[in-house]
């Protein structure tokens, strides 16, 4: 078969080609490995060769996704393969074990194409916080791919991988998927084991698929979800996940959180959102306005809770046992020099924020209060889901912004997660699907042209199947053309 056909296929189509004997697993892998060499987006931090791609993979595994290779965000531990979380402090580190998510896919016969770029320790919304330089948006290389899973979204959009693994703490799967015109799913907290996922904010971190379409997301999730004894917070999804087949949205109710969505959405993005809402109604869905009164405080709560957890999660990078060590004059200098020299500025900022928030005397005012806001947001969603089946928002208030556009102002950058953070705080599943194209505000420089816009749908906890069904039906109606992202 023609290689171009293979490389243009979705993961599900690739699986069918392998299953039907049109292409062997070996041919498929070697075509993709050759293809990844074309990465000029800095999407991959490390690319596999024929040997390392199948290191821990069960090559005799049967099953629906065997042989369909995958790009893996560099936050997942991969046995014997460099794992840096895009930080200098872990440069050269090779974990002794596979993360559970990686191991589950390896046992399903899925080879690894490489480790993808990201914001350092997943802290960022643009990939510009990578210690190894930002990944570029394949639609317009002067723009960011989003973050933190920017590399994963970029390589899937660019056709440098059939699909990819990302992680989402406050929007890190959904927002880059939106910026790159691909599908990003953050499952319910606990669906997929976090074991071996380098921790940023443990109560929020969740692994999620970044794929070309909703079917692929369902296929990947079906294999990833499940209770893991190595992660006491993991539960899996009761009843599992099957491929979605819905053709309409009849009988389903969608709620738009007015107070949230009214806040500063770019007109182009708003237009795409409104058009998508009309499509929902055309498909038989009902759309109404709802209230999530505390959701707008989500960002404030998130930027206390996530840095607080990060400040303790990242304490282990001290130069004692692995990774980089800046000096060994004495214990204090070793800690200070190692962490001072090898953590990037955003990581340091969040460690300081989090350390402050947990300090004796400030705990109640910051961490305690942020926890109470989180609880209120959970209740907001509970109330909303008693009225509607789904909550819908734009994934981001803008399309992909320009490189360097927001780096000087962390607060503006933090606002990029306004629509995605509330779902993370509530622990509920949410998906971003590409819904159309819009012109960047202020025209934008470089190659120019319209950029993809993401549409976010959130469901109650463990409502993944319903969420995938609705997204599948809507995706078909939108019929987004991702061709512009291919390189």
């Amino acid at each position, binding site marked *: 078969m023609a290689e171009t056909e293979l490389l243009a296929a979705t993961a599900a189509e690739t699986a069918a080609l392998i299953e039907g004997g049109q292409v062997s697993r070996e041919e498929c892998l070697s075509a993709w490995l050759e293809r990844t060499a074309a990465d000029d987006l800095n999407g991959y931090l490390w690319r596999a060769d024929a040997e390392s791609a199948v290191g821990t993979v069960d090559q005799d595994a049967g099953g629906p996704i065997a042989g369909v290779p995958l790009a893996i965000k560099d936050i*997942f*531990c991969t046995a014997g393969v460099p*794992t840096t*979380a895009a930080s200098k402090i*872990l440069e050269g*580190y090779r*974990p*002794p*074990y596979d*993360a559970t998510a990686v191991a589950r896919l390896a046992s399903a016969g899925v080879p690894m194409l490489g480790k993808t770029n990201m914001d350092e320790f997943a802290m960022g919304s643009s990939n510009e916080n990578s210690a190894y330089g930002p990944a570029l948006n394949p639609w317009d290389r002067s723009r960011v791919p989003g973050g933190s899973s920017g590399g994963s979204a970029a390589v899937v959009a660019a056709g440098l991988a059939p699909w990819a693994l990302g992680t989402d703490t406050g929007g890190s799967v959904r927002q880059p998927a939106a910026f790159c015109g691909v599908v990003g799913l953050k499952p319910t907290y606990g669906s997929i084991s*976090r*074991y*071996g*996922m*380098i*921790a940023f*904010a*443990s*109560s929020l971190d969740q692994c999620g698929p970044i794929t070309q379409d909703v079917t692929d997301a369902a296929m990947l999730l079906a294999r990833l979800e499940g209770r893991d*004894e*190595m*992660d*006491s*917070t993991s539960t899996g999804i009761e009843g599992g996940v099957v491929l979605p087949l819905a053709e309409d949205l009849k009988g389903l109710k969608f709620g738009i959180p007015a107070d949230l969505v009214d806040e500063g959405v770019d007109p182009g993005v708003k237009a795409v959102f409104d058009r998508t809402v009309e499509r929902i109604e055309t498909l038989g869905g009902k759309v109404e306005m709802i209230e999530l009164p505390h959701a707008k405080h989500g960002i404030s709560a998130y930027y206390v809770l996530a840095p*607080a*957890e990060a*400040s*303790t999660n990242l*304490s*282990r*990078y*001290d130069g*004692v*046992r*692995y990774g980089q060590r800046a000096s060994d004059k*004495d*214990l*204090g200098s070793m*800690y200070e020099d190692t962490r001072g020299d090898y953590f990037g500025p955003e990581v340091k900022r969040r460690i300081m924020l989090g*350390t402050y928030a*947990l*300090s*004796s005397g400030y*705990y109640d005012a910051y*961490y305690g209060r942020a926890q109470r806001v989180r609880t209120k947001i959970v209740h907001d969603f509970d109330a909303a889901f008693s009225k509607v089946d789904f909550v819908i928002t734009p994934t981001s208030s803008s399309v992909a912004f320009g490189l360097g556009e927001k780096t000087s102002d962390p607060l503006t950058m933090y606002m990029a997660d306004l629509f995605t953070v509330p779902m993370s705080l509530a622990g509920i599943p949410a998906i971003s699907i590409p819904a159309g194209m819009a012109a960047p505000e202020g025209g934008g420089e470089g190659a120019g042209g319209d950029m993809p816009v993401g549409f976010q749908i959130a469901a109650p906890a463990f409502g993944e199947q319903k969420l995938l069904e609705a997204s599948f039906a809507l995706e078909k109606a939108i019929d987004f053309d991702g061709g512009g992202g291919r390189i």
Partner: protein
Amino acid sequence: MTIRTSTLPGLPGPPGVLPVPNRKAIEYALLIGAALDCEIAPSSIFHRKNYFYPDNPKAYQITQFDIPICGNGRLGEVRINRAHLEEDAAKMIHVGESGRIQGSDSSMVDFNRGGTPLVEIVTEPDLTSGAQVREWGQLLRATVKELGVSDVNMEEGSLRCDANVSVRPVGSRTLGTKTEMKNMNSFRYIERGIEAEIARQKELIGSGGRVVQETLHFDPSTGELHSLRSKEESHDYRYMPEPDLVAIIPTEAMLKAAQDALPELPAARAARYRDDLGVQDSAALLLSFETEWAEFFEGVVAHDSSIEPRVAANWVTGEFAAELRKQGDQPLAEAKVSPDQLGSLVSMVAGKRISHSSGKSVLETMVADGADPVAVVEAQGLEQISDSGELETIVKAAIENNPKPAEQVRSGNEKAIGALVGAVMKETKGRADGGEVTRLLRQHLGL
């Protein structure tokens, strides 16, 4: 050198690993809670205690903070504030004169015990002297050992003790400022350290000074207290709920299992030995605090029904324990004598088949080579003369051959009879029953 004999790849805290609760540790904590008569929290959580130090590879210790698994208990006269679960730190070895990380030439970290579960038991301030702490500490150790949850060895660190000390004027209800002594590794040192600190605080306050809250180290070799206070050790632990672990919510079945698994505890056993078996108080305590001694004692008593527990207890804690000490300080576990053998010996003495003094010499042989007491008695011909005709002949001969003491006794000096008893014993090589000898002597001396 042994490297990482007890750690899993996960334990030294590499990126991405997660803690999982140890079911056995939770069951043990519930057992300790049951033994200490604690209230069990319906839902308790873990916290992270953050600090930078190489003994903890994650740079935080997983512990329980505001909601411990066990609270409000009691052991003896002492109230238990709480008993909580946490993970142990790794062991640090510092090379160089300072013996501490500051100023050491190098430091090594032994991760083998890092991350293993431990239970910390905190009392209310109900203990008022070093001796009381030692005694209560021994009761606690015996109680925990009986539960089988730890070998509670202070030298090996499976039991450690921090002591908080404060003094207050007689009649005052307000506690004074406390100091803390950390990681003391014997109850004797704890007793001495506490007494030294009480004396120091009294003197300080008496001379108009003020106690400063600090951490102290008691040096048992000099009897001196040193302050461990240093800038490096003033921590803000930034406690935070541990997001990687879910709450512990014990089921009814788990609570019941803990209650059902409770063995007879030392305090109850001491009371039973004393009240039901008539064992002397001191022997009852000695036996009850050491499970293996209690088991040995009960084995001796079980040898035959004629053995009085009180007598057996005296043999076990008295002659037998002394003989073990004399012969190279043998631990009971390595003793060559079985409870059954000692029972056989005690039975022979009680039944007057051999004299008490013969019994002691037989015991010496038994402890030395594990010999069977019956065989020793036969081989050495130690069986008492039970034929009173034979003994009577010897008694008469002793009176005839020792006219001087005989006369003294007849003229009212009863103490002089000892010389005649000695003569009979010498003639019989100790095989005569002392009481019977005295009776016969008195009879033949016309008393």
